[in-house]
C-alpha cells in the first residue's frame, strides 16, 4: 500500500516536473507563455502588436519589445525594471500616460509579476502549441495497473481515463456511471458510422453477453464501409467540397471523385500524414497514381469565378490565398489569414511569412479558367486500358520519358496554355473574359511558349463560319511563320492537331486569324480555349505507329468525365511570388521564395521547397501542431467539444487546452504508436470509460462545467445535419447503402435555385438515389440543400473549421413538414405496422428502433393518446387520411387508412423528439 502511494506520488511529481505547462511559482523564474503573455494579449497587444505599434512600441517579438521606441530609447531594459518605461507607465499618475490607455489599470499582482519578469531579463517563451509535444506520464497509474485493474473495480479502462479522472479530481467533479447498453451502442454507432444501429446490430449486441461484446461491436463499426462515409462527411466541410464553382454563376463542377477518394482513404485507414501528403502534393509524388492525383482536388475545391468581366488573375490569386488560409486553419489550427494584411496581432507570425508560405501554392496551372483546368480525365474501363496500352507501347518502342509525356497529355491535357493568358489584342479580345476570340485580320500574343523538342500543336477551339485560317508567327506580329492552318468549323469545342517544323527555345507566339467571309463583321473567326505542344509521336517506323497515333488522338479528343487536380507549372511558366502590401493583390511588394514561418526554423534540410516538401513537413513529427490539431478534431467529433475548444485557433488567442497532458499524450501516441492511423485512435477514445459514461446532467455539473469541458459525463449533443437526415432514413427503413458516384438530388421544393445566368436546374433523382446518405446530396454553394443549412451545415464557399450548433424553430419546421421527413414518417409507420401486436406493442417497437432502448410507460401513454386522438380525427375525415398518407410507391392503398395515418402521426412524433435528434 505504501509503495503504491509512493509510486503514485512519484508519477504525479514526474508529470508536474516535466510538463511544459506547469506554472512556475512566484519564487522561481517567471514563465512567459503562461504568466506574461496572457496579460500582454489582454491589455497591451491591441495597440502594441502586429496591427498597431503605438509610440513605436510592439510586444509581439522580443527584438521589437526591446527595440527603440519613438522616445528614442527602449521601453524594456532587461534586468532593469526601474528604468524601463514599460513598467513606469503601468503606475503613471497622469491618466493620459498611464497604461493600458484609458482602461482599467493592471492589478498590483500583475504589475509585480511584470516587474519580476523584466528583472529576470524579460525572457521570451514559445506558446505551448508552437512547441513540440512531450510524452507526459499517465497520472495515478501504477506500474502494475494493467494487472491490478483486472481485479479491482477501478473506473479507469484505459490511459485516457487516468488523465480525465486526474483532472476531475482537481476540478472537484466526479465521473458518471456507464451509459445503458442500448444507448451506448446508439452513441458509438452514430459516432463511428454516422448512423444509428440497425435492428440487427442492436439485437446482436444486447444478446451478446461476452465480456468484450462492446469491443467486438466497435471493431465491426470501424471495419464497415459506412465508417468512411461518416468521416468523409467531416472532412468535406474542411475541404470546402462542393459540386459547383461558386461566385455569381456558380456553375456545375465535377469533382465528386475527390469525395470518393476521401471515403476510401478513411476506410483504408490511410495514415493521416499520407492523407495530407496526397491531398497537398499528390501530383508531385514520384509516378503518382490516379488516386493521388484525385486527392489533390482538396485544394482545387477553391472557387472559380465565371462572371463576365471578372479578372482571372484576381480570382486565381484569391484561390491561392484561400489555399494558404485553409491549410493553416484545417491542418495547423492557426488563424493565418489575418497576416495577409499585417503581422499577426497576437501570434509570432510576420506579414512576410504569409507570402512565403503562399509561394508554395503560387505555381500551379489553374488560372480561374472556365474549364476549371487542369482536370484528370476519367476514362471508362475499356478506354482506360487503351490509355495504359499506349503508354506501354511508347515506353517499349521509345522511352519512359516520352511515354510519360503522352500519358500525361491523354489523362490531363497538360501542359497546355490557357487562351485567357493571351495579351496584345488587335481586333481580338477575351470573350466574356474567358476565351480568346479573334476577328477577321485580328491577332493576339501568347507569351513564353516552350517549343524545345516540339513539333505538333494541339488547338482546342470552336468556329462557326467556313473559310477561316490561322497563322502563328514567332516573336513578332510579322515574324517568321511557325505554322499556318485552315480553321475548320466545329460543333462546340474540339481539338485540332497541326504539325510544324521543330524549332528550339522559348518563344512568344503571335496568333493571326483571317476569314474573308467575316469582312466588316465583328464576329470571331474562332474562339480558342487552349493551346498544347507535343513532341513527335514516337516510333515512326514501327508498323503499329499509325494505328497507335490514331488511337491516341481519338482518346485525346473524346469527351470524358473529369475531376479537378493540381499540376505544377513548368519552368517557362514559373510565377514570381510577392508580398502584397496591406494584403491587396495588386500592390506587389518584395519578391519572396517559398518557406515556412521563421518561428519553425525554416523547412528542414533535404526537403524540396515545393508543395511536397511542405506537405512532408506538415505531416512530420517536427511539426508541433499537426497531430494535436488532428487528435483534437477527432475528439471534438466524438465529445462535441475539443480538448482545445477553439479547434480553429491553437494560437495565443484560442482557448487553452482543458487537459493539455491528455492532448499531448494522444498526439504522440497517434504519431508514434498508431503511425498516424485514425482507426486505433478512435478505438482508444471510444473504449475509454470516459466515453462510455451516462450523459445525464446534475445541477452540480451544470454549474461547475456547463460545457462538459472536463468530461464528468457522456456527451449529449445534437446530431449533425448529415446525421439528422441519415438517421431518419435508416430508422424508417428506406436508407440506400449505395456508395460513391455523382452527387444526387433528393426532393427539394420548387424555386430554391434562382441563380442568374445559370440554366442549371434541380432534377429529382430516381429510385434509391432519393434515399442516399446526406454526403451524396448535390451541394450548390450559392444555394445549398435547405434542410442541411437549417441544421448548421455550411455553404462551403470557404473552409469553416467548426460548425456551431444552433437550436431554432426552422429546425422544428423541417423535421415536422419537409416532405422528406413526412415521407420518412410514412415509411416508419408502415414498418411498425408490420409488428403483429396491439398498438402499444407497435409504439414500443417504433420507439425501440429509434432510440435503441425501451420506452417508459409515461411516454408510451402520451404516444398512445396521440394515436387515439389522431385515429378519431382521421376516421371522421378519411380523405384527410388519404392525403396525409400521400402517394404510396407500392401503389396499393392501405386497407385501414385512418389507423395507418394515426400511426404516421406517432411515427412523425418519434422522429421529432429531442432524444432522437440528440446523441445521448
Amino acid at each position, binding site marked *: 500500500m505504501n509503495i503504491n502511494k509512493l509510486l503514485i506520488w512519484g508519477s504525479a511529481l514526474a508529470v508536474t516536473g516535466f510538463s511544459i505547462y506547469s506554472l512556475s511559482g512566484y519564487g522561481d523564474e517567471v514563465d512567459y507563455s503562461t504568466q506574461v503573455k496572457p496579460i500582454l494579449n489582454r491589455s497591451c497587444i491591441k495597440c502594441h502588436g502586429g496591427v498597431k505599434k503605438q509610440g513605436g512600441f510592439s510586444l509581439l517579438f522580443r527584438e521589437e519589445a526591446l527595440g527603440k521606441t519613438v522616445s528614442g530609447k527602449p521601453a524594456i531594459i532587461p534586468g532593469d525594471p526601474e528604468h524601463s518605461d514599460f513598467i513606469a507607465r503601468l503606475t503613471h499618475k497622469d491618466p493620459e500616460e498611464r497604461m493600458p490607455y484609458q482602461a482599467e489599470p493592471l492589478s498590483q499582482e500583475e504589475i509585480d509579476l511584470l516587474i519580476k519578469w523584466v528583472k529576470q531579463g524579460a525572457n521570451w517563451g514559445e506558446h505551448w502549441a508552437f512547441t513540440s509535444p512531450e510524452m507526459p506520464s499517465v497520472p495515478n497509474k501504477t506500474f502494475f495497473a494493467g494487472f491490478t485493474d483486472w481485479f479491482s473495480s477501478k473506473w479507469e479502462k484505459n490511459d485516457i481515463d487516468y488523465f480525465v479522472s486526474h483532472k476531475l479530481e482537481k476540478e472537484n467533479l466526479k465521473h458518471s456511471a456507464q451509459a445503458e447498453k442500448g444507448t451506448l451502442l446508439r452513441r458509438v454507432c452514430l459516432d463511428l458510422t454516422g448512423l444509428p444501429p440497425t435492428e440487427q446490430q442492436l439485437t446482436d449486441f444486447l444478446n451478446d453477453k461476452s465480456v468484450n461484446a462492446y469491443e467486438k461491436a466497435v471493431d465491426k463499426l470501424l471495419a464497415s464501409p459506412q465508417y468512411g462515409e461518416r468521416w468523409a462527411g467531416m472532412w468535406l466541410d474542411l475541404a470546402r467540397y462542393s459540386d459547383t464553382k*461558386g461566385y*455569381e454563376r456558380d456553375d456545375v463542377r465535377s469533382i465528386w471523385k475527390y469525395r470518393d477518394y476521401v471515403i476510401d482513404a478513411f476506410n483504408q485507414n490511410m495514415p493521416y500524414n499520407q492523407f495530407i501528403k496526397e491531398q497537398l502534393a499528390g501530383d508531385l509524388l514520384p509516378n503518382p497514381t490516379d488516386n493521388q492525383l484525385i486527392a489533390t482536388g482538396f485544394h482545387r475545391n477553391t*472557387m472559380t*469565378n465565371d*462572371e*463576365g468581366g471578372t479578372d482571372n488573375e484576381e480570382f486565381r490569386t*484569391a484561390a491561392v490565398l484561400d489555399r494558404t488560409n485553409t491549410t493553416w*486553419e484545417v491542418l495547423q489550427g492557426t488563424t493565418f*489569414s*489575418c497576416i495577409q494584411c499585417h503581422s499577426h*496581432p497576437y501570434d509570432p507570425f510576420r506579414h512576410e511569412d504569409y507570402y512565403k508560405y503562399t509561394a508554395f501554392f503560387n505555381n500551379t496551372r489553374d488560372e480561374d479558367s472556365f474549364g476549371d483546368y487542369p482536370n484528370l480525365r476519367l476514362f471508362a474501363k475499356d478506354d482506360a486500358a487503351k490509355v495504359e496500352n499506349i503508354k506501354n507501347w511508347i515506353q517499349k518502342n521509345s522511352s519512359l520519358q516520352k511515354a510519360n509525356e503522352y500519358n500525361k497529355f491523354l489523362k490531363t491535357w497538360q501542359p497546355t496554355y490557357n487562351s485567357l493568358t493571351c495579351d496584345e489584342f488587335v*481586333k481580338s*479580345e477575351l470573350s466574356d473574359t474567358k476565351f480568346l*476570340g479573334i476577328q477577321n485580320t485580328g491577332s493576339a500574343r501568347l507569351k513564353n511558349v516552350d517549343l524545345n523538342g516540339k513539333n505538333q500543336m494541339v488547338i482546342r477551339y470552336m468556329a462557326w463560319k467556313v473559310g477561316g485560317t490561322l497563322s502563328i508567327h514567332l516573336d513578332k506580329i510579322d515574324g517568321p511563320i511557325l505554322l499556318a492552318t485552315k480553321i475548320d468549323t466545329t460543333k462546340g469545342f474540339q481539338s485540332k492537331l497541326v504539325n510544324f517544323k521543330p524549332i528550339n527555345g522559348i518563344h512568344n507566339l503571335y496568333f493571326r486569324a483571317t476569314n474573308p467571309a467575316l469582312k466588316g463583321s*465583328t464576329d470571331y473567326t474562332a474562339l480558342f480555349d487552349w493551346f498544347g505542344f507535343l513532341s513527335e509521336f514516337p516510333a515512326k517506323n514501327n508498323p503499329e505507329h499509325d494505328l497507335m497515333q490514331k488511337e491516341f488522338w481519338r482518346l485525346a479528343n473524346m469527351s470524358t468525365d473529369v475531376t479537378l487536380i493540381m499540376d505544377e507549372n513548368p519552368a517557362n511558366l514559373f510565377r514570381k511570388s510577392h508580398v502584397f502590401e496591406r494584403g491587396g493583390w495588386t500592390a506587389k511588394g518584395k519578391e519572396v521564395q517559398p518557406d515556412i514561418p521563421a518561428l519553425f526554423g525554416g523547412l528542414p534540410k533535404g526537403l524540396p521547397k515545393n508543395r511536397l516538401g511542405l506537405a512532408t513537413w506538415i505531416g512530420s513529427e517536427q511539426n508541433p501542431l499537426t497531430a494535436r490539431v488532428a487528435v483534437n478534431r477527432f475528439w471534438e467529433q466524438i465529445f462535441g467539444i475539443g480538448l482545445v475548444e477553439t479547434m480553429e*485557433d491553437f494560437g495565443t488567442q484560442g482557448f487553452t487546452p482543458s487537459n493539455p497532458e491528455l492532448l499531448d499524450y494522444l498526439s504522440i501516441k497517434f504519431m508514434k504508436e498508431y503511425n498516424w492511423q485514425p482507426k486505433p485512435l478512435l478505438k482508444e477514445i471510444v473504449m475509454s470509460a470516459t466515453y462510455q459514461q451516462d*450523459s*445525464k*446532467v*446534475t445541477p452540480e455539473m*451544470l454549474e461547475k462545467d456547463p460545457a462538459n469541458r472536463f468530461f464528468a459525463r457522456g456527451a*449529449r449533443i*445534437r446530431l449533425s445535419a448529415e446525421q439528422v437526415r441519415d438517421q431518419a432514413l435508416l430508422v424508417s427503413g428506406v436508407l440506400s447503402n449505395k456508395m460513391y458516384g455523382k452527387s444526387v438530388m433528393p426532393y427539394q*421544393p420548387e*424555386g430554391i435555385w434562382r*441563380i*442568374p445566368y445559370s440554366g442549371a436546374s434541380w432534377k429529382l433523382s430516381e429510385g434509391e438515389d432519393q434515399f442516399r446518405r446526406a454526403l451524396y446530396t448535390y451541394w450548390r*454553394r*450559392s*444555394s445549398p440543400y435547405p434542410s442541411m443549412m437549417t441544421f*448548421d451545415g455550411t*455553404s462551403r464557399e*470557404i473552409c469553416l473549421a467548426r460548425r*456551431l450548433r*444552433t*437550436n431554432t*424553430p*426552422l*429546425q*422544428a419546421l*423541417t423535421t*415536422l*413538414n*419537409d416532405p422528406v421527413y*413526412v415521407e420518412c414518417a410514412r415509411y416508419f409507420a408502415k414498418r411498425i405496422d408490420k409488428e403483429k401486436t396491439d398498438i402499444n406493442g407497435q409504439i414500443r417497437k417504433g420507439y425501440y428502433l429509434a432510440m435503441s432502448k425501451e420506452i*417508459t410507460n409515461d*411516454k408510451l401513454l*402520451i404516444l398512445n393518446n*396521440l394515436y387515439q*386522438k*389522431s385515429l378519431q380525427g382521421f376516421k371522421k375525415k378519411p380523405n384527410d387520411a388519404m*392525403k*396525409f398518407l*400521400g402517394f404510396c410507391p407500392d401503389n396499393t392503398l392501405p386497407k385501414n387508412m385512418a389507423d395507418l*395515418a394515426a400511426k404516421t402521426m406517432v411515427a412523425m*412524433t418519434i422522429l*421529432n*423528439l*429531442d432524444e432522437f435528434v*440528440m446523441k445521448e
Partner: protein
Amino acid sequence: MKIHQEAKKHLIEYETRRHFLKQCTTGIGMMAMGSFLNSCGINNVSADALANAQNPLSPKNSPLLGKAKAVIYIHCAGAPSQLEMFDYKPELQKMDGQPCPQSFLEGKKFAFIRGVPNMLGAQSKFSQVGNSGAWLSDKLPHLQTVADEISFLKAMHTDQFNHAPAQLLMHTGSPRLGRPAMGAWVTYGLGSENQNLPGYVVLASGGQNPDAGKSAWGSGFLPSVYQGVQCRSEGDPVLYITDPEGMSRDLRKSSIEAINKINQKQYEEFHDPETIARISQYEMAFKMQTSVPEVMDIKNEPKYIHEMYGTELGKESFANNCILARKLVENGVRYVQLFDWGWDFHGNVKENSLDFELSNKCRQTDKATAALLQDLKQRGLLEDTLVVWGGEFGRTPMQENREGRPQQYKGRDHHTEAFTVWMAGGGVRKGYTHGETDPIGYAGISGRTSTYDLQATILHTLGFDHEKFTYPFQGRDFRLTDVHGKVIKEVLG
C-alpha cells in the same frame, strides 16, 4: 449619455413587456396553445427566463440612442443607372456621342468597355421637385412626390466592379464570402421584437436572386440564427411552414403537445437545458405557422392600399414585396431586405437597354417605392424605420462598347466611382442632397461617401458605434466596416 442610455433601456423594457402582453392576448401572438412551458410544471419565471436566455433573438438594447428601430433596404440588383435616375448632368448631354477623353480612361479598368468608348447623355429628362428642389428623373414620377422625405447620397463610391463581389461588399463589408450580412449584424445586436416571425427577412423579385446569392444575407461567422430568412412568393412563404396535406391544425397541435410532453420527461431525466430550448422552439414553430402566412398574405389589405402600391396579387412582384416590407416592420421584424433583379443596363441586348427596358423597370418599382414611404409615414412608422435604396455600384457616363464594338442599344458599363443611394426615415434628414459629382458624373468631387460610410451610418441610426460593434472570430474582433467607415453626419436629422 448615461442617463439617456438608462432611459432608453427602460423604454425598451417597457416596450418589450408591452409587446409580450400584446402577443399573449391579442393579434398574432394569440394561439390556441398558450405557453406549453407554463402548463407543464416548470416554475413559470425560471422557465421563461431560461427560454429567454436561450433565445438569441430576444430584443436587446443598442448601446447608444438610435432613432431607427427597423430597416427596410431596397437593393436594385444589377446596379441602376444614377445618370438616368438621379444625377442630372447637362454637360454630359452636350458630349453625347463624342469619344471619351483619354483622361477618364488612363489607368482605369472596366468590366466590359475596351478601347475608347463614346460618351452617352442621359436617356431621360429631369425636373426639380418638391421644396428641396431635388433633381429627379421623369421616369420616377411617384418618387418625385416624396422627394422631400429623402436624403440623397450623390457621390457614393465602391471598389468592386463585378456584381457578386460588389453586392457582398455592400451588405457584408467584404467582397469575399464568409462575412455576416448587415441584417445579421443588426439582429445579432438588437434581437427581434416579434418572436413569432424571423428577425431578418429577405424578399426577392425580378425572377432571380441577386448575383451574390444567399451569401448576401448569410450569417457568416455569427451563429446561423441570425441569417436572413428568405420569404418566397410562391409555395411556402417560409420553407416547410405548411403542415403536410391532410393534417388538421388540431392534430398538429396535438402532435407538438405530445413531442413537448415527452421532451419534458426527457428533461426531467437528463436535465439538459438544450431540451428546454427545443421545447420552446417547437412552440415557436407552431406559432410561426400561423403568423408567417398571416403576415405574408396581402389579400386582406384594403383596396386603396393595393392601388397605392400597384400590387399584382398572386404574382412575384416588387410592389407586393413593398407591402410585405411594411407589414413585416409593423409586426416587429428588425431588418427587411428587398432585392429586385434586372437593373444591369449594359445595352448589349434590348432586354437590358436604357432606351427600352429602363422605363419598364422604373414603372415596376417607382410607384411602390413612393407608396412604401407614404404608407410608413401615415402609420407613424417612418420615424423609426430607416429605408435605404441603392445598387451595388453605378454606371459609366460612357456608352458601353462591349469587346470594343459599338452596340445597337444604349447602355452603360459598371462604374465604381460614382453612384446614388438614398435614405429616408429613421431619423435621417429630410429633403437633403449630400455629395456632388463632376459635370459629367464620372466621379464625386465633394461629399464622397463609401459603402463603409453608408454601413457606419445605418448602424449609427440604429444606435451602434460601428467601430465598437464587434464579434470575436479567428483571433480578432471583426466588425461590419472592417477598418473603414465614417458616419455621414450630414444626413442625420
